[in-house]
C-alpha cells in the first residue's frame, strides 16, 4: 500500500484540474500576447482562470494578482522590492519577520540584512504561535515591511494575521503574509483584514507545480520582478504559463468548493488519527489542534531520531516528512521545534503527517499500524530511549 501524508510539501493534481489544463498544451498553444487567432483561443480560459483565482481570495478587481512561478518567487519579490524601493534609497531601514517563516522569506531577509537592512525575527511561544503584540513592540517609524506567514508549514500553527494586519495598518506599515499553507485549508479573504501582499502556490491545493501568485493591494505597487515585455501588467514579464494559470484557476475553484470538507471531514480524520498516535507512550505535539490547520500533525516520538522513523515509514510505502536532522542536507534539528524551545532531545524526533481531501481512513489505519511497529523496533535500537528519566522535562505538554 502506498500512502501519501506529505501534503504540506505538495499535493496530487486534482484530475479535474489536469483535465482543464490538458487542451492548453497541444490544442490551444498560442502565445496569448500574439495578435492572431491562436492567441485569442487562449484568452477566455485565462480570463476565467484569473477570475477564479481572484474570487478564491476575495480580491477586488482593482487589486493585482500576479502569477509567478512559485511561492518562493513571490516571497523573494516582496522582500527584494521593498529593499530596492525603501531601504536602498534610505527611506526606511527595517523589516519584521517571524523566526519560523519559510526559508524563502528567512533566506531573503538574511540576504537583504547582509546588504544593510535591519531585520527583527519575531519569536514564537510554547504553542508555536506568534504573539501579535510583539509586532506592535518592534515596529518603528523606519519599518518598511512586516512579513508573517498565515499558517506554519511544520506545525500547522495559525498565526494571528488579522491582528497583525490591524497593527500594521495603525502604523501605516505594509503587511505581507505567506498564505501558502492557508489556501484550501482555511477561509482566505483579503478584504477582511489589512493585507497588502499575499503569497500562495497552486501545488499546495491540488494544482500544478511551477505556478505561484502574489496578491498586491491597489496602491501598494512593487518594482517589476522581471523586466521585459509587458506581461502581467509589467510586474513580471515573460510568456504567460497558460496551462499553469488555467490549472491554478481550476484548483482554486475546487479548493473553495472543498473547504468545508477540508475543515470538517479532514479535520475529524486528522483528530482521530492523532488521538491514536498519542496513545503511543512518550509522544508529544506542540500546537493545540484548534490553533492548527485542519490537516497537519507534527508529532515527536521520544527516543527515535526523525529520519530513522521516516526510513521505516518509507519502507512500508508511507510518505511523511521531517524537518529535522539528517533528512535535510543541513543536518539541523527541526527549526520550529527549536524555536519553540522544545527540549533539545526532542527537536530531532519530530515527524510531520499532513493530510489532504484525498486521504482515506484506510490509509490512516494502515499508517497507524506501521507507526506502532516502527516505534517498537526503533526504540529497541535506541541508545537513549530506555534511559529517559521519569518525569523528564520535555518543554512540551504531553497530549495524552
Amino acid at each position, binding site marked *: 500500500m502506498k500512502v501519501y501524508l506529505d501534503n504540506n510539501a505538495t499535493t496530487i493534481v486534482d484530475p479535474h484540474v489536469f483535465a482543464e489544463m490538458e487542451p492548453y498544451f497541444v490544442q490551444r498553444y498560442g502565445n496569448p500576447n500574439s495578435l492572431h487567432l491562436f492567441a485569442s483561443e487562449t484568452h477566455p480560459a485565462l480570463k476565467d482562470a484569473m477570475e477564479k483565482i481572484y474570487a478564491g481570495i476575495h480580491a477586488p478587481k482593482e487589486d493585482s494578482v500576479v502569477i509567478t512561478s512559485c511561492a518562493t518567487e513571490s516571497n523573494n519579490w516582496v522582500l527584494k522590492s521593498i529593499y530596492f524601493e525603501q531601504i536602498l534609497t534610505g527611506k526606511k531601514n527595517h523589516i519584521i519577520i517571524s523566526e519560523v517563516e519559510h526559508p524563502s522569506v528567512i533566506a531573503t531577509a538574511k540576504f537583504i540584512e547582509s546588504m544593510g537592512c535591519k531585520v527583527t525575527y519575531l519569536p514564537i511561544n510554547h504553542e508555536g504561535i506568534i504573539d501579535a503584540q510583539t509586532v506592535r513592540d518592534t515596529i518603528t517609524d523606519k519599518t518598511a515591511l512586516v512579513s508573517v506567514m498565515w499558517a506554519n508549514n511544520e506545525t500547522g500553527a495559525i498565526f494571528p494575521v488579522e491582528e497583525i494586519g490591524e497593527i500594521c495598518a495603525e502604523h501605516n506599515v505594509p503587511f505581507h503574509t505567506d498564505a501558502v499553507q492557508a489556501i484550501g485549508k482555511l477561509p482566505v479573504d483579503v478584504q477582511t483584514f489589512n493585507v497588502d501582499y499575499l503569497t500562495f502556490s497552486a501545488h499546495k491545493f491540488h494544482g500544478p507545480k511551477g505556478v505561484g501568485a502574489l496578491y498586491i493591494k491597489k496602491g501598494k505597487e512593487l518594482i517589476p520582478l522581471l523586466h521585459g515585455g509587458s506581461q502581467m501588467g509589467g510586474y513580471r514579464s515573460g510568456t504567460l504559463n497558460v496551462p499553469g494559470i488555467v490549472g491554478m484557476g481550476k484548483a482554486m475553484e475546487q479548493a473553495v468548493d472543498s473547504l468545508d470538507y477540508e475543515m470538517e471531514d479532514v479535520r475529524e480524520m486528522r483528530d482521530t488519527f492523532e488521538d491514536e498516535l498519542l496513545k503511543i507512550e512518550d509522544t508529544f505535539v506542540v500546537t493545540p489542534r484548534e490553533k492548527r490547520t485542519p490537516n497537519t500533525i507534527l508529532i515527536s516520538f521520544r527516543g527515535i531520531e526523525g529520519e530513522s522513523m521516516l526510513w521505516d515509514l518509507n519502507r512500508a510505502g508511507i510518505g511523511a516528512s521531517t524537518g529535522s536532522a539528517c533528512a535535510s542536507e543541513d543536518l539541523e534539528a527541526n527549526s520550529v521545534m527549536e524555536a519553540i524551545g522544545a527540549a533539545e532531545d526532542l527537536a530531532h524526533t519530530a515527524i510531520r503527517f499532513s493530510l489532504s481531501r484525498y486521504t482515506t481512513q484506510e490509509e490512516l489505519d494502515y499508517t497507524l499500524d506501521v507507526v506502532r511497529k516502527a516505534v517498537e523496533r526503533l526504540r529497541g535500537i535506541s541508545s*537513549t530511549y530506555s534511559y529517559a528519566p521519569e518525569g523528564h522535562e520535555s518543554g512540551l505538554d504531553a497530549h495524552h
Partner: protein
Amino acid sequence: MGMDSLIGGTIWDEYSQKVTDLMNNPQNMGEITEEEAEAMGAKLIVADFGAESCGDAVRLYWAVDPKTDKILKSKFKSFGCGTAIASSDTMAELCKGKTVDEAVKITNIDVEKAMRDTPDTPAVPPQKMHCSVMAYDVIKKAAAQYKGVDMESFEEEVIVCECARVSLSTLREVIRLNDLTTVEEITDYTKAGAFCKSCIRPGGHEEKDIYLVDLLEEYEKEKMSAAATLGNEGGATGTFKDMTIVQKIKAVDKTVDENIRQMLIMDGGDMEILDIKDNGENIDIYIRYLGACNGCASASTGTLFAIENILKEKLDPNIRVLPI
C-alpha cells in the same frame, strides 16, 4: 555546480544495499549485561558518544578479555538516522575479535568502506559521511575507558575534516606544496570538505577550531609576508644607492604606492615614474604628473617637496625628484 547538483535527489537512493540491509536489520544491535560479561570472564565496557541534542547518539558495549585485551563480544545501541544505525552496526562488527589497540585503529573510513557494495562506489551520500564519524569516536571512548586514559590520547593529530580524516598537518603541507588557493582545490587533492562540508567554513552543523578557509587565509598571509620580506631583501644586500636599476624602480614604485599615491588620488591626481638616474651625489627620479596634478600650481612646490621628502626618508637622503 553540474546537473546532478541542480536537480538534487533523494539521498536514500544513494545508500548501498548493505547500508539498507543493516538499517532494516542490524546484526549487532543490543546490550551486553554485566552477568554475560562475567560468564565470559570478560570486563564489560559501556561507552556513550554524541547526544540526542546533536541528533545522533551511540552506545557501544564491549566484553573484553583482560588477559589478551581481545574484544570477545561487541554490541551497540543508537539514536540516529539510517546511516548512523548501519555504521554503528558495522563498527560493532569490525571490533569483534580485535584487541583494544587494534580496534582503536578502525576509522570511519574503514566503516564506510566495509558498507560498500562495490569497492569504488561510496556506501552513503557525501552529506551522510558525517554520521559514520561517531562510530569511530565511540571506539576511542570505549578504549579510553578500558585503558583508563583520556580519549584524546588516541588522537595523534588534529583532524580538520572528520569525514575524510584529513589532518591539519597534511592540509598545510598539501596547500603549500601545490600552491592551492581554493577550497575546491583542497578537496580535489585531499577529499577534505567533500562530504558533510562542515569543515569548510563556520556555519555548518559542526563547530570547528579551524576551517579550510582559515588554512587558505593563513597560506595567503604567509605568501604575502614572504613577498614583503623578499622585497626588503632586494635592498637588504646594500643601500638604495647600491641597488640595480630594476630594484630601484621596484623600491620607488612600492614607496609611491604605499605612501604617496593615495594622497595624490584624493585630489584627483596621480603620478608615474619615468626614469631613475645616478647623477654623481644625487639620485634623480624623473616623474610625470597625471590628472589634476598635471598643471597644478603646487605640483612644483608643496606637492613636489612632499613626494621628495617621503622618498628621501624611506629610501635615500640624496634623492631628487624632477617632474617633467
